[in-house]
């Protein structure tokens, strides 16, 4: 029993950090040139093998498991990794599990970019980062499927709250295009835990940004981090981040081992990580004061990404409903 990364996993993470810090800087340079920076990063993720981390080696993957995927995405979440990373990992998994080896390999090599589709009200769907993609993963709580972007005939751009993605609305997939579907429940849990991992990274990173500010910012002749009115919300952020990280890792391990409580653990992770991401981002805005309210400060990107990630897994309330419907795991 060990909930901390092994030596091998630490080595994997060290390599990931080295790449992420230069490939996806979380500062103004990133958003000045987002399309180019992220397109480049999405290609490089392919050469590093990220899209197939959890797939078996014969399928072109790295032969690792859900635990390693979660660890890596928690790192990527700190750098507000493009949604195409998550979508690519999920798409490769769906393609592989439905026997579409050729589709899987175009995703693994980075030739095919993937966006995300989630259900919206009145039978519509929302497309996230699908504008530059060929394929999309449709993430529905009962099933995951892979579809070509051409399956949506009435795509309509919408202003995106999160400037880090493009957003479109469309009606349901046109029926004559058959999406390739894969049996629902397990893949959905897998998707949820990967989103949780991104939220873990987000909640940790936004805390680190706020802590750094509280140390450096001087008022009343001292660092504002001395004041308990600042210190205590930061401590609460640490509690939420710690809960999110270890519950997410627990869920990832439960999925990797196909444990009977995998679904219970995963919905619990979604509830905890979902709150950590939003609440930590909100608290960070306040730590920065008026600066936090501007676009010149990076914190707003975390607020917006927290909203997006929670939405991708159907919202926190839905995850609570899933959890309360579960049998006790005692």
């Amino acid at each position, binding site marked *: 029993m060990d909930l901390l990364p092994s030596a091998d996993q630490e080595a994997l993470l060290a390599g990931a950090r080295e790449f992420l810090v230069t490939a996806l800087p979380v500062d103004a340079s990133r958003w000045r040139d987002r399309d180019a920076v992220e397109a480049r990063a999405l290609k490089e993720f392919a050469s590093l093998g990220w899209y197939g981390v959890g797939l078996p080696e014969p399928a072109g993957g790295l032969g690792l498991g859900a635990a390693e995927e979660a660890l890596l995405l928690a790192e990527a979440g700190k750098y507000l990794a493009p949604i195409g990373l998550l979508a690519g990992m999920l798409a490769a998994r769906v393609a592989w599990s439905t026997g579409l080896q050729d589709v899987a390999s175009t995703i693994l090599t980075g030739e095919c970019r993937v966006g995300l589709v989630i259900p919206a009200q009145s039978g519509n769907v929302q497309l996230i980062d699908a504008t530059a993609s060929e394929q999309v993963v449709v993430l529905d709580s009962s099933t995951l499927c892979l579809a070509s972007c051409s399956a949506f005939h009435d795509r309509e751009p919408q202003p995106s709250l999160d400037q880090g993605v493009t957003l479109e609305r469309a009606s349901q997939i046109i029926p004559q295009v058959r999406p390739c579907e894969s049996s629902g429940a397990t893949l959905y849990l897998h998707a949820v835990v990967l989103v949780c991992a991104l939220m873990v990274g987000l909640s940790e990173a936004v805390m680190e940004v706020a*802590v750094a500010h509280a140390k450096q910012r001087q008022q009343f002749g001292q660092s504002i981090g001395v004041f308990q009115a600042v210190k205590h919300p*930061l401590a609460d952020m640490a509690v939420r981040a710690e809960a999110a990280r270890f519950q997410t*890792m627990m869920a990832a391990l439960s999925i990797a081992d196909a444990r009977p409580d995998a679904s219970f653990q995963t919905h619990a992770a979604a509830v905890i990580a979902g709150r950590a991401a939003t609440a930590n981002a909100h608290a960070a805005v306040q730590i920065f004061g008026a600066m936090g309210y501007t676009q010149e400060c990076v914190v707003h990107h975390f607020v917006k990404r927290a909203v997006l990630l929670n939405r991708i897994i159907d919202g926190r309330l839905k995850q609570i409903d899933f959890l*309360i419907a579960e049998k*006790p795991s005692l």
Partner: protein
Amino acid sequence: MNLLFTEEERDFRAEVRDWLESHRPPGIRPLDGRGMADYDIAWQRTQFEGGWAGIAWPVEYGGRGLTTVQQLIWHEEYAKAHAPEIGVCFVGLNHGGPTLIMNATDEQKRKHLPAILRGDQVWCQGFSEPGAGSDLASLRTQGRVEGDNIIVNGQKIWTSWAQWADYQELLVRTEPGSQRHAGLSWLVCDMKSPGITVRPITTMAGVAEFCEVFYDDVAIPLSNVVGGVGNGWRVAMSTLSFERGPGFMAEQMEAARLVEELIETAHTVRAPDGKRPAIQDDGIARTLGELRAEVTALRSMALAGISRADRTGTPGAEASILRLFLGEVVQKLYRAAMEIIGDESLVLSGWGQGWTRPYLHSFAYSMGGGTSEIQRNIIAERVLGLPRAR
């Protein structure tokens, strides 16, 4: 990362389960008075005779010397077996004893350690004072060295179960005029010494679980100083890392059990509209769902804490994260219960039963062992590296 237990660990779990099943004391633990103390002591004696006293103590001092993972298994099985809480034996086994192990002379160890393990010595803690709570280093109880004795005058407070204790770990200011952490000494105080007055304090939950202790020219032999005169602060802090750790798992499991019990209760009581079970009220269901997520996360965090302790040898300041979160979850649980149970919320339940008396008891969770405010300071300063106030 893995969730697997080794074959030895699985065998160990079976051994613990069998032993607890056949030895856990029958009946309900009395919740106050001499009967409670006797019950706790008898259970400690049973554990001692079974070789389960001092599971975390080194073997050379009569303990079981379990690894942290084995301790986790012990506490998990202990909670599953509904074995009784440690009660009056807590301080001796988890604080006083370990402090002696790390700091005492051989003679001091011989006198106290075996007796603590057997349940023959009940210990209490004499640290907090009316003027030194969260700010422990401002303590003023005075110890004047006179010949072979230290003469103690002053007052301690919040001393759990002092009325049943044989000995006390007592922190006093032995250097006149000294400030803060300097000039303190850690003494073994015989609670039968002349000049000691113990006044139990009744909590809002109606139990005299802690006391004020007054010292009026109490003579304590100099040979009872542990770790040397003037080193009291270092000695007192040396075992902070010994506290809790795997023992936290029992508290997490109890909280998880209570959440499930409250969910069951919500199936039987009516929702505010009077028309359907409370669980069908979305607001109530979501509060309970959130609590379920939180106690589940607590377990994962506790396991992570054990993994951390396994690597570094101490639970570290992150233990404050667990403590703070547990307190919040337990208080949220009982506050939710008070709303869910409706008119039953007006009836005072028995101790350890129902929801209302435990609700009153739950206020202790954000105070005992360091208030939530102090836990947040520790997290901010030692985990996040924020500056201390001057």
